[in-house]
């Protein structure tokens, strides 16, 4: 794999309110690969995601995608998809209005938009939900709308921030399977933030373990569990497993 493909995060530091939230992070996401960022709360996972999205300015370091330097590229020109925790669904638009938002921004014609929206809604299991208001959707349905909205404009890379964090266990497990299938079908490189091991293992090929703004270990979950780099990693992986 050439060094210029996929997402490259090199020595990224982010300072927020005087605190070094990210401190020299290096991370690679190869084309077609899903990587999970795993770590305790406050470890900087979400900030790293937001930095990649362009929502947090870098203090130092470099982020490239497909060889292009992203520093100075505003979020709306990155062509990335981002699924927020709890969805961040637009309350003033119906399901269709939410899903087609990115398509409208891209200047797609109405007829093509309609077709694409139907296609994506069917993909996430919400066929026929287009004209529905978003206020009365269940938590799981809202997450699916958020996912459809993220996928619709065919982003070249997607980021998911605790995509299933607020759902109850049963729904969570069902959606994890759906989400994994969707990521595989789309063949997109993806970065998923989670604090849940099972979710990380189920969704991602590879896991990057974050602690205090640094990546302490990367690999598959079983690799990490088999050879933890230090006691903290062993405790974190073991604890969550147990």
């Amino acid at each position, binding site marked *: 794999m050439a060094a210029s493909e996929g997402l490259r995060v090199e020595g990224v530091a982010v300072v927020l309110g005087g605190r070094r939230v990210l401190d020299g992070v290096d991370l690679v996401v190869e084309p077609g690969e899903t990587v999970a960022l795993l770590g305790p709360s406050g470890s900087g996972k979400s900030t790293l995601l937001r930095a990649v999205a362009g*929502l947090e*300015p870098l203090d130092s370091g470099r982020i490239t995608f497909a060889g292009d330097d992203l520093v100075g590229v*505003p*979020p*709306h020109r990155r062509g990335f*998809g981002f699924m927020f925790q709890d969805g961040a669904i637009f309350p003033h638009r119906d399901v269709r209005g939410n899903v087609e938002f*990115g398509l409208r*921004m*891209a200047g797609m014609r109405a007829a093509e938009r309609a077709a694409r929206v139907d296609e994506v809604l069917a993909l996430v299991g919400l066929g026929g939900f287009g004209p529905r208001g978003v206020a009365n959707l269940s938590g799981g349905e809202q997450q699916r709308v958020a996912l459809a*909205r993220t996928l619709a404009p065919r982003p070249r890379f997607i980021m998911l921030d605790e995509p299933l964090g607020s759902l109850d266990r049963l729904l969570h497990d069902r959606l994890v399977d759906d989400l994994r299938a969707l990521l595989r079908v789309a063949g997109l490189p993806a970065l998923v933030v989670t604090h849940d091991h099972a979710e990380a293992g189920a969704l991602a090929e590879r896991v990057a373990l974050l602690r205090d703004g640094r990546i302490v270990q990367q690999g598959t979950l079983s690799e990490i569990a088999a050879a933890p780099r230090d006691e903290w990693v062993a405790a974190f992986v073991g604890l969550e497993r147990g």
Partner: protein
Amino acid sequence: MDQGRRALTGPGCARLGRALLVVVPVAFLGAFFVYPLVAILGRGLVPRGHVDFAAVGDVVGDSGLREVAWFTLWQAVLSTALTLLVGLPAAFVVARFAFRGRALLRSLLLVPFVLPTVVVAVAFEALLGPGGPGARLHLIPGVAAILVAHVFFNVAVVVRVVGGLWANLDPSREEAARMLGASRWRAFVSVTMPLLAPAILAAGSLVFLFTFSSFGVVLLLGGPTRSTLETEIYLRTTEFLDLRHAAALAVVQIVAVVVVLLVLTRVQERLARGQRLVASRDTARRPRGVGPRMFLALTLGGLALLLGAPIVALVARSFGIGHGGPSLVAYRSLSSPGSALFVAPSVAIRNSLEFALIATVVALLVGGAAAFVLARRPSRGRRALDTLLMLPLGTSAVTIGFGFLIALDRPPVDLRSSPLLIPLAHAVVATPFVIRAVVPALRSIDPRLREAAALLGAAPGRVRREVDLPIVGRAFVVAAGFAAAVSLGDFGATAFIARPDTPTVPVAIFRLLSLPGQLNFDRAMALSTVLMVLTALVVVGLERLRVGSLTEF
């Protein structure tokens, strides 16, 4: 967050848009608020090219004018105290009791606040004046009538500001105090009151501001011996053409208002500090037991009497009820000028509607732009802008009208003969209301919605159009209602700048009142009823569209 937002803004077009958002309100208020204000200061303090405190000294030294200042102060303090006395139980009832008609009551409570001062003065005149059902109380003219009218106006402020916070206070804290052994009263005093204190202070300061600069009510109900700074400015200007002392009085008035406003801003900053709030529908309970039911009944009955009686008296008497049965004589006569009026009252109605439309559009543009700027996180520059934008709220309409009169009648800004003068003055008065209505709605927008839109490819300007505007759309509708009501009802500013042949409805009512004869008073009542209905339609109609309880009023 701020840094994140900086990353969101692209160069070029977006920067121009942002600059416009700042330039439009600053330019507008600079030309039509600051410049007239500076002209007043110039007249009052620098009359002959050098600083001269003689005029202000006259004001302070003149025992008659000291009397005016003293009366202005004590009637405002007393009005505020009385308004809180009536308003707090009402706020409690609206916030915590679930009863049928509560939503309607919330809407109706807003009506007195937006009713034109002239209409309210005429309504109390109809109730308590000669020929009215309360004539034997001999309250008109007099201080008592002024105080009652002030309470009538401002109860809504207390209910809105205090009741709004009260409804959203998490009752679990009071419940926790109860579980720790506090009585109901003790829990209220030791837990709820301190939490409400900032809201009570804020409401009190607002009421104080409004009553301190009360004009129409004092002019019409106070009689010839009672004068406040406002009415004195008017009388000095129109009766004695004594602009120098009028300006000095305005300086005194402005200084007093600025001091109160600074305190108010402080208080509101404290108020804004995070409290755990819950949605109002969780805290309202049906009243249970004899005590609470009595309390509810007494409060609602008292409100109905205070707010209903003058309006009923006005409407009934305008139709001749009590004076020879129902008739439309007064209304029919509205289409003819009659003696001593330049134009028919019906022309004034058309003027008022036109001016209201223009003033509303201008206030929405200016206030809307300012709201977008202010809704971002506070910085030093923004706080200064906030104060500049809020100053017109504290500055009385009289000061604005007076400023227009002495500043805009000569180059560089000569609008003396422009028909735009009146709506522009109204827009200055209305702009802070627009800002107050829109900013909270903008602040309530989850910043992630903007981020989500950006990540879906929307440039910053597009984000504002696609996310912010639609979500605050309803707040804009409410703001439009306020602006229209302000314009329809304004008397203080218009009294200075309306020309004889272009009166607004309040000015026409005032002129009718100054004419002798029962028919003229009947026409004033009829015209007041028309204006009241117009205003109420605008405000109650728009109130129905209100966004939750996000607006500050």
